[in-house]
């Protein structure tokens, strides 16, 4: 069966490239074609690749794969085409692409890469997808079918036609039927088109909608076409309606994700500013230190990138927390009750920390890599996908929030912190060491800022200015939420994020920011103590 199919495939392909086939009579055509690779210009490569694919030799898949990956080279001396991989000695291990003969390793200067561009790689991907349709592994078949769905071509559609009946995997079968239905919609009779339209009307893939729109535009307005036209416009309307719902969900997700970043940035400040009443302008730099800690961890353990973030979280907490305690012990405690001086002093500290980082790590941005599990997105359906990094950061922000809540509500440290912040003198009278509590609280707030920095290193640039970008927003969130209220910070951060993201598409990022700010000012006019004002005597 498979053999029969490959013969069939061969015929179809040769039909497609009949001009090329007139020269390629036998199986031995492949070496001659491969020989042309080094001398071909990019423009001539397209037809050449088609010819190579048309030979249907067993090596074709591997050769094209190597070419697509950019591992196909040729020797400058004799134009022999080889696959090359860098080895530990910075030389290239070479293997002849046709007979798999291993050649002596050479320096980079002796070989030259066979160039491809995006268009060629796409072409190769399509060809490989067609070959993969018969693969044993359902996952490979699935990605091949997806590729074919996005870039339909005759060869592929013919193979799908032949393979559809024998396909076992549910998902692959479903997508195959979509491919065939779209083909039917485009080439079938009016009745077939109508049937295809009704069957496809609940598909969310963008190709389906595009096919509908294209058909509707092509269809002449005559009475016999009326039912089809109506079906098409109804299907398009249906898809568009669903699309607008998913767009809304998507915006909500974007808003929550921006909100969770704001939450992470602000939550440490809620403690230092909200609970202790210290205006800490160096809060942003604590985040920066956290981000740089991630960088240092990745540099120290280059083989453990996948786990680097997990290691960085406690490390960043300790580093930033330690620096926070130093700042509290060294500067802030001498300025107690003098907010203006504290503000200026901490601003000075923030400049010192920035310059320190510039001196140690250079003023250039540092490269923090994203682990594999933070890349890509979770596809809910063809219209809705959530990126993993944002998803994890939302979860992480909530985790940090609730652990902090637990610390403040359930531990003796939290009890002391609350006692000192509510009535310092009374707390001292009850034998709580208020200066010690101050230092620990400041350290805790700073440590959480450091943890936020780890998350930020995955979203933005790790450079000396990282902190400055977030300090204003953090203060806004804390003020909006109500000074000292953790729940207020949570609600404020998520509200601001969501508002921003809903306004952004219609007004652009700058205007959206301005409107959120103006709204905030008006809100504060009405409720000067924010969303969740502290009650009781402590608030006065």
């Amino acid at each position, binding site marked *: 069966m498979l053999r029969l199919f490959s013969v069939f495939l061969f015929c179809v392909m040769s039909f497609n490239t009949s001009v090329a086939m007139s020269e390629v009579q036998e199986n031995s055509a492949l070496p001659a074609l491969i020989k042309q690779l080094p001398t071909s210009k*990019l423009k001539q490569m397209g037809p050449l690749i088609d010819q190579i694919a048309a030979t249907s030799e067993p090596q074709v898949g591997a050769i094209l794969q190597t070419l697509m990956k950019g591992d196909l080279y040729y020797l400058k001396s004799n134009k022999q085409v080889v696959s090359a991989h860098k080895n530990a000695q910075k030389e290239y291990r070479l293997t002849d692409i046709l007979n798999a003969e291993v050649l002596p390793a050479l320096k980079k200067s002796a070989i030259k890469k066979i160039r491809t561009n995006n268009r060629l790689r796409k072409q190769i991907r399509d060809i490989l997808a067609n070959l993969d349709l018969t693969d044993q592994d359902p996952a490979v078949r699935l990605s091949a079918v997806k590729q074919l769905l996005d870039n339909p071509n005759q060869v592929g559609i013919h193979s799908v036609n032949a393979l559809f009946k024998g396909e076992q995997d549910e998902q692959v079968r479903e997508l195959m039927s979509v491919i065939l239905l779209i083909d039917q919609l485009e080439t079938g009779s009016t009745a077939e088109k109508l049937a295809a339209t009704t069957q496809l009307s609940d598909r969310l893939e963008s190709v389906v909608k*595009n096919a509908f729109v294209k058909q509707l535009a092509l269809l002449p307005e005559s009475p016999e076409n009326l039912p089809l036209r109506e079906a098409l416009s109804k299907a398009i309307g249906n898809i568009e309606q669903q699309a607008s719902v998913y767009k809304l969900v998507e915006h909500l997700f974007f808003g929550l994700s921006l909100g969770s970043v704001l939450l992470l940035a602000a939550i440490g400040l809620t403690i230092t500013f909200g609970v202790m009443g210290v205006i800490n302008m160096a809060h942003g730099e604590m985040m920066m230190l956290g981000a740089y800690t991630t960088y240092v961890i990745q540099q120290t353990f280059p083989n453990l990138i996948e786990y680097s973030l997990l290691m960085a979280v406690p490390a960043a907490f300790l580093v930033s927390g330690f620096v926070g305690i130093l700042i509290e012990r060294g500067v802030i405690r001498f300025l107690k009750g003098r907010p203006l001086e504290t503000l200026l002093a901490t601003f000075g500290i923030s400049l010192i920390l920035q310059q320190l980082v510039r001196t140690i790590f250079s003023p250039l941005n540092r490269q923090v*890599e994203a682990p594999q599990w933070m890349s890509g997105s979770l596809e809910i359906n063809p219209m809705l996908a959530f990126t993993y990094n944002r998803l994890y950061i939302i979860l992480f922000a909530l985790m940090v929030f609730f652990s902090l809540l637990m610390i403040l509500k359930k531990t003796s440290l939290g009890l002391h912190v609350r006692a000192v912040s509510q009535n310092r003198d009374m707390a001292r009278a009850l034998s709580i060491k208020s200066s010690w509590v101050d230092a620990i609280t400041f350290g805790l707030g700073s440590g959480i800022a450091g943890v936020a920095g780890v998350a930020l290193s995955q979203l*933005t640039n790790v450079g000396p200015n990282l902190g400055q970008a977030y300090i204003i927003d953090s203060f806004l969130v804390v003020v909006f939420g109500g000074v000292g209220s953790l729940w207020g910070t949570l609600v404020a951060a998520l509200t601001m994020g969501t508002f921003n993201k809903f306004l952004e598409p219609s007004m652009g990022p700058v205007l959206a920011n301005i409107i959120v700010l103006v709204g905030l000012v008006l809100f504060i006019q009405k409720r000067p103590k924010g969303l969740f004002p502290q009650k009781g005597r402590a608030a006065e």
Partner: protein
Amino acid sequence: MKLKKLIVASSIVVTGVMTNFAYAADNIKVGVLHSLSGTMAISETTLKDTVLMMIEEQNEKGGLLGKKIEAVVVDPASNWPLFAEKGRELLAKEKVDVIFGSWTSVSRKSVLPVLEELNGLMFYPVQYEGEESSKNVFYTGAAPNQQAIPAVDYLMNDIGATRFVLLGTDYVYPRTTNKILKAYLAIKGVKAEDIMVNYTPFGHSDWQNIVADVKRFGSQGKQTAVISTINGDANIPFYKELGNQGISAEDIPVIAFSVGEEELSGFDTKPLVGHLAAWNYFQSVETEENEAFIARWKKYIGDDKRVTNDPMEATYIGFKMWVKAVEKAGTTDVDAVEQAMIGIAIPNLTGGIAVMNANHHLSKPVLIGEIQEDGQFEVVWETPGTVMGDAWSDFLPSSKDLVSDWTAPIKCGNFNVKTAKCSGQKF
């Protein structure tokens, strides 16, 4: 006591002799007006070092007109008005013969009136938006028709793009470039609904919405491409978001005008591989001149990992041309050198010859490269010959009749060919 006196006396004598010697030698002074601190320091410090390296090289060859070249470095600190002040200092106080400097368009516009007032001479080495030609400035970076227009041609002819997203940072260069591109795309028959434009502030980091919009815009069944004039820092989160939302360079390629080797050296390049950039120079181009230049640069800077980039080549060409023009004129007098400059030819680092035209812009080749995993570019397309830089875009209604020609008899930076008049505006 005696010893101290002796030291003081001898140091006075030595200083006196040295100053005398310096005056006697009557050095040629080259001003360097690049920011060494502030936001632009990252990019501009490299160019300062390039000028210093070129001066060192020239002095090793025996200087210029039998004199030594001496660099006067000032720091305008990424502060645009300070460019005018420091420019004035270079021209009026230091009496430099030529200035190499400036990166952003706003800093160039800031120093321009000073150059024209004091009749100075400046070489500007960065790709820019055009719509300017001053008698006192030579533009060795690319004009829009040497970068943006060929890039669009490449996207249309080689990628087959019919829908375009123009993303840019919100300032003068992206706005003017996009205005030109929109006019050019309209001429090429691209409908207004097939063009999406978006501007973001400097350092924008939350690209979720915009990338999702690009994805939606690109899923309408037509090949879509992004033309990016996004500047600096904002690029990393942008490309990261593209990668995470599953947009590959094969689906929607991004061609960037502000992303070069230097910018890539701080990036995690994985999400960028396969995306494009248009420049007149790439470090990866293999020519003898380029290899010598790279080797010299690495040796001068003492770091094997440092890269070279397009504005460095522009500085290199500018400096070589100035040296040649001074030799041709036999003097460093600004007016004489300005006239001698026109027609001067210098080999490009990427092969071919760069020629200075009468409009103070260069003719040079345009290259399009794909980003590789090691942060280098691989050339996938190049213009068959050189492209002549056009000061005034032919695609904007306000400037299509304007030409710049600094040779007799026109001698005007914005000559209107329809009315045959020079508008009198100097820049």
